[in-house]
């Protein structure tokens, strides 16, 4: 019994509540010696457990963990059922086996066209990093300028509306033409496709900076640099980060398509290569890997975004 531990009268009042709280219906009543008169006044409600004595919330955890597990199990179950009779589509077991083999040696190199999955992912990430990084460097300042100056906004917004919906694959030939090499062309495609969400969100963010803040800037006679760093940037940050998140998602979407066409080492090329080898298990693995990496990228940016929240 917990209540037996504390029996100094000094603790009686405190204990009165905590022991009451700990008393589950199965427990016997606390020792009468300890129970102060105040104790009796508080009704015995097992639900009013103090936070210090809270037992681990197994039910809540189960509620959070169980549904996703069941969902995944259902998907694999249906997959297994559908592939039971055999055919070109691999069973979950076979896929898992292939994945096991693949991930047991992710960084092997057998010539330029046969490298481990780890290398493929890293090369893709490098292209995404470069293309997306360049888009950030160009897109965010561009968004600021568009948001701050109405004339420039009117100048470029029709162009943006026109170019934004263009498919990544349409940009690739331009990249190939200009750079005369596959790798820069892929990076260019990522750049041009992932720049728009950042430009647009930053510009909208700048336009939505409350007039009050801008009045403060005017009344305090702040310099344009101070306005940018102390008022615009923090005020725009939530919009900007939304743009960055959308952009990184787009970049990761585009890389697969771009690499399928340009070749080289990369997850997109790998998918196409495995299709040529008719290794469907690897394609399925690639789909999961692509999804997982995309999820991680988004999750990383969410974590970064949380640091910039002020309100």
């Amino acid at each position, binding site marked *: 019994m917990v209540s037996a531990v504390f029996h100094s009268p000094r603790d009686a009042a405190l204990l009165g509540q905590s022991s009451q709280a700990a008393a589950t219906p199965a427990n016997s009543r606390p020792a009468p010696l300890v129970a102060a008169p105040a104790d009796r006044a508080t009704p015995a409600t097992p639900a009013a457990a103090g936070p210090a004595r809270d037992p681990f919330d197994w039910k809540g955890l189960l509620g959070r963990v169980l549904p996703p597990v069941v969902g995944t199990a259902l998907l694999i179950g249906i997959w297994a059922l559908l592939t039971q009779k055999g055919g070109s589509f691999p069973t979950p077991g076979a896929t898992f086996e292939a994945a096991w083999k693949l991930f047991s040696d992710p960084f092997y190199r057998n010539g330029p066209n046969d490298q481990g999955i780890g290398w493929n992912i890293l090369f893709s990430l490098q292209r995404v990093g470069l293309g997306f990084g360049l888009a950030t460097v160009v897109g965010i300042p561009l968004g600021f300028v568009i948001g701050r100056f109405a004339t420039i906004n009117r100048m470029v917004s029709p162009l943006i509306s026109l170019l934004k919906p263009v498919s990544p694959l349409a940009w690739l030939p331009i990249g190939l033409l200009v750079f005369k090499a596959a790798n820069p062309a892929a990076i260019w495609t990522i750049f041009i496709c992932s720049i728009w969400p950042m430009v647009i969100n930053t510009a909208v963010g700048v336009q939505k900076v409350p007039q*009050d*803040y801008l*009045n*403060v800037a*005017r*009344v*305090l*006679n*702040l*310099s344009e640099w*101070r306005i940018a760093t*102390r*008022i615009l940037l*923090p*005020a725009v940050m939530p919009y900007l980060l939304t743009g960055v998140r959308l952009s990184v998602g787009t970049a990761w979407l585009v890389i697969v398509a771009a690499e399928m066409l340009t070749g080289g080492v990369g997850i997109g090329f790998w998918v196409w290569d495995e299709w040529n080898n008719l290794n469907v298990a690897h394609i399925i693995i690639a789909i999961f890997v692509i999804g997982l990496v995309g999820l991680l990228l988004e999750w990383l940016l969410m974590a970064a975004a949380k640091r910039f929240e*002020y*309100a």
Partner: protein
Amino acid sequence: MKPMLSISGVGMTFATKRGPFCALRDIHLDVQRGEFVALIGHSGCGKSTLLNLVAGLTTPTTGILLLDDRELKGPGPDRGVVFQNHSLLPWLSCTDNVYLAVERVFGARESKAQLKARALAALELVGLSHARDKHPNEISGGMKQRVGIARALAMEPKMLLMDEPFGALDALTRAKLQDELMKIVAATGSTVMMVTHDVDEAVLLSDRIVMMTNGPAATIGEVLSVPLPPLREAPRNRLAMAHDAGYLGAREAVLEFLYRKQAHVEKEAA
């Protein structure tokens, strides 16, 4: 005595979708150094417009505003503005909010430590030393408004312009801040122009009350000198005022103006 602020023949017409809208016309007003002037009138009478003109946030369509014989062109650190909704930057601490203003005015001449000391002194003046590292969303509305006042005062402006500074606060907090403002004005001898729609606030705080006629095309209806010792000499005691003949007389005159002469008629918005 030469007025500090001189407003002559000022009118303000806004261009709207439905054509020009005349908000103010023929404003003539002089404010002396160390004077506390309240602008009062019904909603839409252009009192905030007038304050914005003095602040330099808008430029008048006619007339001229002079501050110490220099024409006002745009906002400047010689006029500290306290906004109704405090307008603190939520990503900066109280100190940094004040520092931003201090830095702009004194940054060229003083070291960072001196600037910081100025910001802290301003916060101390409004009794907020304990909240210096807090962010605006961590403090109450009354405290936010006090930081706003500290920010304006820290620039050591020639004039303090306040746009319904206590309008959004509850009555008790408002009374407390009014008392503090009186102490600050008495201690610093600031020249203040304050927009209000609260008759008691106007009479309690000001040396002169500028009463505006109803808009559109509003102008100054009457100017009342409050028959009390100037605020800069000593803060007024609100309890003593409750039965002070001068106070009550001024209060009655303002009420008379607002509710008889300018009984607000709800017109179709022009």
